[in-house]
């Protein structure tokens, strides 16, 4: 969509249903993508390389973030299982149960926030590289 997402309400768009068996006309032929994507053009090699490097960067963001969260989760699991935390009571509940019940949510929100920022930044860099800031969608 060509207009800013901060406008009061995005305009309603009509979405057409593909028929089963008919190849969905996705690459470049969709109606709500704006004029840049409607004309289907042969992909230039340079742009294809750019897209691949964009994908690699985004995949790296995803994998690093996922690993970070899984490590935090493993640490919480180990911490909660420490015998010392089973005997320490907080408001009548063993500390290990409280750690397992509540401690995973702050790292979850933190990783999600960082990953969103990182993914947006990767896209901003791609826009700079392709000069797609104004109207041209960087699609080959």
């Amino acid at each position: 969509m060509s207009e800013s997402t901060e406008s009061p309400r995005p305009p309603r768009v009509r979405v057409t249903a593909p028929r089963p068996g008919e190849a969905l006309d996705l690459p470049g032929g969709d109606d709500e993508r704006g004029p840049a994507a409607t004309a289907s053009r042969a992909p230039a090699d340079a742009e294809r390389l750019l897209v691949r490097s964009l994908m690699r960067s985004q995949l790296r963001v995803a994998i690093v973030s996922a690993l970070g969260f899984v490590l935090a989760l493993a640490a919480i699991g180990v911490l909660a299982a420490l015998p010392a935390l089973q005997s320490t009571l907080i408001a009548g509940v063993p500390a290990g149960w409280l750690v397992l019940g509540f401690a995973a949510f702050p790292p979850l929100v933190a990783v999600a926030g960082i990953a969103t920022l990182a993914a947006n930044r990767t896209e901003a860099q791609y826009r700079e590289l392709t000069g797609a800031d104004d109207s041209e969608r960087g699609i080959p």
Partner: protein
Amino acid sequence: MTAASASVVATAIDPAIGYTAIALVTLATALIGFFAVRLSRTTSDFYVASRTVRPWWNASAIGGEYLSAASVLGIAGLILFEGAYGLWFPIGYAAGYLMLLLLVAAPLRRSGAYTLPDFTGARLASRRVRGLTTALVIIIGWFYIVPQLQGAALAMTIATGLPPWTGAAAVALIVGLIVAAGGMRSITYVQAFQFWLKLTAVAVPAIAMLLVVSGRDLDAAAAEAFPAALGPLAADPLAVTSLVLALLLGTLGLPHVLIRFTTNPDGAAARRTTLIVIVLLALFYVFPVIIGLLGRVHAADLAQPGTADGLALVLPGRLIEGPVGDVLTALVVAGAFGAFLSTSSGLVVALAGVISQQVAGGTVRGFRLAALGSTLVPLAVVLLIAPAGLAGSVGLVFAFTASTLSPLLVLAVWWRGLTARGAVAGMLTGALACALALALGLLLGPAGVADAQLPSTVVSLLTQPALLTVPLAVTATVVVSRWGGQRPPAGVDRMLARLHVPEPR
């Protein structure tokens, strides 16, 4: 649930409160739904609300749709029944959205497809992939609606004393009518309302109960209420890993979750929406955990298979006497009913979209007929089979999804070398392996443990098989794509560019 255990729980609540709460939440849902019908004019309103839904609304709606019977009732029940193992469920339910954010949110929105089969069929240019995805979406949707209706049956019995089938039938009827009438557009507003209703319905009673018990000496009961045998150390690490894997990956293949992302204006908005959902879920899940922990201290008698899921409904009335307790009980009943209504209607919208596109050419009339069909089949199942624990049965659906649609989606978004044959092989392998493991687990599990014939590790993996079946499905997909004698579809580079290249500013 046996009749005896149902009546034990049922006597805890005044039926008048139950009727009032259910009537109010149904009325509110219907009013919002039917009001929004007047705004539904076109086919795309029905399918994706014409993509006019903004991130906060959309995030509330996703939260409202996602928080099912398993979240509102099941988690507290599981913590009461199984101890610290149950604490892993809310973590997995919430963190599934992190995987969705990281792996598929923006690319799926950019694909322009608005059902899962549209996406996989177009990405691989294959009718067979499309057809198989459709079949899996329908199976997953039906099995996910079943526990919702079972929860409705349980809540109806607890709240009013009526026989269980009335709750299931009432929810199925309301959902079928609302979806058939209003489609996605009305449902978005209903769902957003439902999230805040559900948050209130767990948060207010949980905080009130904490205030009531805060003056008491709790340490004396701790050894009995939180035994080490059910503590964090006691859970089998392999079973926990398998469960967490299923919950993390399962979310991104759920049909009613994915369809919501297509209602975002662009890829960045899809990501922002997911981030808001994670914040909302992290906030929500604090409260079922509190209710579950309180239940271990104050309602140990409910820790049985048939009654544990009723904990969140019964506990406020036990801890807080008089009119305040009544109001809190009514609030939880309303929230629970909201959960059944919203998750079921979200699933029915997703299923009706998929079915009507496959067989009826995507017309509004086809959508309405498919909506009624998607409601009636699970209702028939509920009326025929005995219910299991809510969070547990939903956990199995996550394992199945994580073994079939999730690996396909992730590979379709990130791997250029994926072929249609590989996708079909992966889906079939994951589905068959997962179904086989679950069936064996059900048949052999309890007896095998009792006779010590099977090691407990084997039983853990059969009853929660994601740790085996997810790698199996991924391997099958990759091997057949690589060496199956088929090349990636011709337009793959342009398709991947479309998924990943940001929209113009």
